[in-house]
C-alpha cells in the first residue's frame, strides 16, 4: 500500500468522534463512518433500509450509555440527584435527619377541684393536702378533631415555691352558706405533645449483628422507650459509635424552681440508631453490633486480648484472624440475644394538629395519683373534677418535609458541626441547651488571664420578673456536663457568674419654654427606658455617653443637657410605706463608673453587664 493510501486510512480512523452524546448525532456519525469505511459493501444507509436499522440500534445503545453516564454523574450530586435512594444517601451523608410530619405542642392548663380545710391557726382555709394529686406524664387529652395530646411531664400540684406557697394557681370553687370556701380550684400548666402512642414487640433470636426492625407506623416523631425482657434499656444515639447519652433527672436542690432537671451522662451499651425511609416514612431501628453475652467492661476493645501467646516458641508463622471479632465488644453497642424487645413510640403529626384555643379539653386517659392517701370518696371527687383546656393554640405541627425541602436543608446542616471549635460554636451550644436544664440569658467568652489553655465563660440568668440574677448552681453543673460532650479534649472552660452592675441615670435638661416639662421628662425617661431594656444589653457591652445624650436630645422640647450622671446602685433599698414603694434588691457589685470611663465610654468590668434594674426609680431627671 502506498504511503498516500496509508495516510488516508489513518485520516479516516482519526475521524472517529467521541463527543457525540445523543441518538441523532451518533446515528449521523455512524452513517458517515459506514459510508467512508464500507463503500463497497453497502450503498443504502437510509433509515428505511435494514443497514440503517442496524446503525440505529448501535446509535440507540450509544444514546442509552450516554444517558446512563449523565444520570450517574447527576446522581453523585445532591442538587441534581433524582433517585430517592440516592437522595436519601446524600442527605444522610450531609447529616440531615429525615423526619416525618411533626407533632404540635400546646401549653395546657390542668384544673382540679380539691376540698378545703381550716388552717391550723383558724385564719382562713387551705386546700386539703391529702386530696392534692399528681397528674402523671402520659395522660391523654383529646382535641376536637380527634387528635390526641399527651402530657410530657408529671404535674405535681403539691409543689411549693421558696416561700412555701403552692406553685399552682388557686381560686375559690364552691362556697358554703357562709361564703366560706368549700373547694379550691387548682390549676397548673403542662406541655402536651400531639400524636398517638404505639407499643410493638419483636423477638431477637441468636446473636445478630446490627439487627434491624421496622416500626409498623409511619411518621414516628419520638421513640419513647426501647426495653427488653431482661430489663435492659436501649438508648437512641446519633451514631452507634456514641456510647453515652444525656439523661435528665429531677432537680431536688434548692434552686429547683429555677432549674427543673439535672443533666447527667449515662453510659449506653445497649443502643440503637433510627432511620426514616424517605418514601414510606417508616422508621427502622438498627441495634448494636455486639452481643450482650460477650459484654465486658471495656468501652474500647483491648488490643492486648488479640496478642498471640508464644508458648515456648521463638518463631511463629503467619496467621489469619477475623476482624469481625473486634465488633463483638461494646464499641458499637450491644443487643441481648434470645430476648424480646419492646418499643414504645409516638407517631403522627401535621398541620391538622395545630388547633385553636379552647379546642383541646378534658381527658381521655387520666393518670392521677395521690401521694398523701386521701379517703376514696375525696380521691374520686378530685378525679372527677379534673379538667384541662388550652388557652393558646397548639403549634408546631407540620406536614412531612418534601424531598426538595430536605435537599434545601442539607447546606445548612453541612455547615454545622457537633463540636465546639470557635467562639460562635461555644455560645451557640450554651444557648441551645434544652431549657429544662435551666436557661442561660447571656453568655460571653474570654481568655482566662491566668491559664492560657482555658477559656472563661461568664453566664447569667433572669428571674421571673425579668431581672438579672446569677445563674443557679444546678444550671452551671448542667452546662458543664452538657459542654463536656462537645468540647475538644484539650479545651478547658471555667464557668463563672457574670458581674451585674446596676446603674442609675440622673439627667438635668433645659426644656423649650413652650413645652410641658413633665411631658418632656417622661418622654426622655421612656426613650432611655427603651434603650436600657435588658434585651438590648450583652455582657461586656459598654455605654457610650454620647449615645445617651443623643437619645435625650432627640426628644421634642429638649434644648440642652445641663447635667448627666451615671451612678452605681447596689445593695438593698428598703421600701417606704409612706411613698408606697417596694423594697428594691440590687446586685451587690460595687463598681466605680467614673474610674472606668474613658473618652466618654463607660466600660463594664470584664465579664460584667450593665443593668437598669428598676426603671421607675433608676432613671431620674430634672427639667429646667
Amino acid at each position, binding site marked *: 500500500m502506498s504511503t498516500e493510501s496509508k495516510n488516508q486510512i489513518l485520516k479516516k480512523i482519526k475521524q472517529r468522534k467521541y463527543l457525540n452524546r445523543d441518538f441523532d448525532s451518533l446515528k449521523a456519525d455512524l452513517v458517515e463512518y459506514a459510508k467512508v469505511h*464500507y463503500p*463497497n459493501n453497502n*450503498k443504502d444507509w437510509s*433509515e428505511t*433500509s435494514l443497514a440503517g436499522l442496524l446503525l*440505529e440500534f448501535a446509535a440507540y445503545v450509544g*444514546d442509552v450509555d450516554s444517558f446512563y453516564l449523565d444520570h450517574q454523574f447527576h446522581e453523585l450530586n445532591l442538587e441534581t440527584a433524582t433517585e430517592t435512594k440516592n437522595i436519601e444517601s446524600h442527605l444522610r451523608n450531609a447529616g440531615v435527619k429525615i423526619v416525618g410530619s411533626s407533632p404540635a405542642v400546646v401549653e395546657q392548663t390542668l384544673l382540679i377541684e380539691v376540698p378545703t380545710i381550716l388552717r391550723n391557726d383558724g385564719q382562713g382555709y387551705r386546700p386539703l393536702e391529702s386530696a392534692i394529686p399528681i397528674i402523671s406524664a402520659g395522660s391523654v387529652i383529646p382535641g376536637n378533631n380527634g387528635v390526641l395530646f399527651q402530657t410530657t411531664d408529671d404535674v405535681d400540684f403539691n409543689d411549693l415555691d421558696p416561700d412555701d406557697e403552692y406553685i399552682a394557681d388557686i381560686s375559690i370553687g364552691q362556697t358554703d352558706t357562709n361564703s366560706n370556701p368549700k373547694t379550691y380550684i387548682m390549676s397548673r400548666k403542662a406541655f402536651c405533645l400531639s400524636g398517638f402512642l404505639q407499643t410493638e414487640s419483636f423477638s431477637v433470636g441468636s446473636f445478630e449483628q446490627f439487627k434491624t426492625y421496622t416500626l409498623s407506623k409511619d411518621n414516628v416523631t419520638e421513640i419513647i422507650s426501647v426495653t427488653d425482657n431482661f430489663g435492659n434499656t436501649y438508648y437512641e444515639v446519633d451514631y452507634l459509635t456514641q456510647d453515652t447519652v444525656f439523661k435528665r433527672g429531677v432537680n431536688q436542690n434548692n434552686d429547683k424552681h429555677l432549674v427543673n432537671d439535672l443533666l447527667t451522662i449515662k453510659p449506653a451499651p445497649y443502643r440503637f440508631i433510627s432511620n426514616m425511609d424517605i418514601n414510606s416514612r417508616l422508621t427502622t431501628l438498627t441495634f448494636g453490633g455486639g452481643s450482650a453475652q460477650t459484654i465486658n467492661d471495656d468501652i474500647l476493645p483491648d488490643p492486648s486480648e488479640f496478642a498471640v501467646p508464644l508458648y515456648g516458641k521463638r518463631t511463629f508463622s503467619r496467621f489469619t484472624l477475623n476482624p469481625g471479632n473486634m465488633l463483638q465488644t461494646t464499641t458499637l453497642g450491644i443487643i441481648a440475644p434470645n430476648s424480646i424487645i419492646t418499643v414504645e413510640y409516638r407517631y403522627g403529626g401535621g398541620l391538622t394538629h395545630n388547633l385553636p384555643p379552647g379546642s383541646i379539653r378534658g381527658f381521655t386517659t387520666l393518670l392521677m395519683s395521690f401521694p398523701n392517701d386521701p379517703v376514696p370518696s375525696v380521691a374520686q371527687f378530685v378525679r372527677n373534677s379534673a379538667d384541662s383546656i388550652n388557652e393558646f393554640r397548639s403549634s408546631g405541627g407540620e406536614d412531612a418535609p418534601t424531598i426538595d425541602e430536605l435537599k434545601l436543608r442539607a447546606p445548612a446542616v453541612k455547615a454545622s458541626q457537633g463540636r465546639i471549635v470557635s467562639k460562635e460554636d461555644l455560645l451557640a451550644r450554651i444557648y441551645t441547651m434544652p431549657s429544662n436544664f435551666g436557661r442561660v440569658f447571656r453568655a460571653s467568652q474570654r481568655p482566662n488571664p491566668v491559664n492560657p489553655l482555658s477559656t472563661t465563660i461568664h453566664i447569667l440568668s433572669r428571674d421571673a420578673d425579668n431581672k438579672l440574677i446569677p445563674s443557679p448552681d444546678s444550671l452551671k453543673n448542667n452546662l458543664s456536663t452538657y459542654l463536656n460532650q462537645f468540647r475538644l479534649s484539650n479545651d478547658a472552660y471555667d464557668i463563672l457568674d457574670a458581674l451585674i452592675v446596676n446603674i442609675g441615670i440622673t439627667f438635668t435638661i433645659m426644656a423649650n419654654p413652650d413645652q410641658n416639662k413633665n411631658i418632656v421628662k417622661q418622654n426622655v425617661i421612656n426613650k432611655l427606658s427603651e434603650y436600657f431594656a435588658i434585651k438590648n444589653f450583652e455582657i461586656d457591652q459598654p455605654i457610650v455617653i454620647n449615645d445617651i445624650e443623643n437619645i435625650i436630645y432627640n426628644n421634642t422640647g429638649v434644648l440642652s443637657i445641663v447635667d448627666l450622671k451615671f451612678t452605681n446602685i447596689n445593695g438593698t433599698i428598703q421600701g417606704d410605706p409612706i411613698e408606697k414603694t417596694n423594697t428594691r434588691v440590687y446586685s451587690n457589685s460595687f463598681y466605680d463608673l467614673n474610674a472606668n470611663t474613658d473618652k466618654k465610654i463607660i466600660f463594664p468590668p470584664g465579664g460584667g453587664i450593665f443593668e437598669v434594674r428598676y426603671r421607675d426609680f433608676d432613671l431620674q431627671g430634672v427639667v429646667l
Partner: protein
Amino acid sequence: MAISFKNVGIRTDSLGENPLTRNRSIIPFGIRTPLQLSDGSGPEIFVMNDNLKDQIRDNLKNLILTNYGERVMQYNFGANLRPLLAEYYNKDAFDSEAMIRINTAINKFMPFIVPVEFESVENYSYSNKLSNVKINITYSIPNLQIQKDQIQVSLLVI
C-alpha cells in the same frame, strides 16, 4: 528461537484483501429481506440487493409493515397498519384509512416514491379460522423512470 506466526499479524497494505473492503464489480445496495444466507459464491454473508429497484421495493415493504413504536428511537416510523387490523370490520373504511397512512409514511420517509394504486383483498382461512388482508400497492419512482412497480404485503387480522 522459534517465533509463533500468531505474533505476526497482518500488514496494513493487506487490508485490501479483507472481504469487507475488497473491491467488487457490482456494489450491492443493501441487504435483502427477509435475511437469507448467501450461497457462498460471493464475498457477502447475506443475499444482497444488487439493484436500486429491488432495494427500494424492500425498503417500502418494510416501511409499510412497520408499526408505530417498533423502531427504536423513532416512534413514528412506519405506516402503523396493525391498529387498523384490530378493528377491521368494513373494507371501505379500512382501505380509506390504510391508504392515508401508507401515503403519509411514504411522503415522510420515502418521498421519492409516488403511490399509484391501492388494492386490498381479504382472505379467510377456514382451517385456522384467521383472516388476513393482502394489500397490493402500485407505485412509481419518477427519478428512476420506474413506472408501476408493485409490492404485496400480507397482514393478519387480529
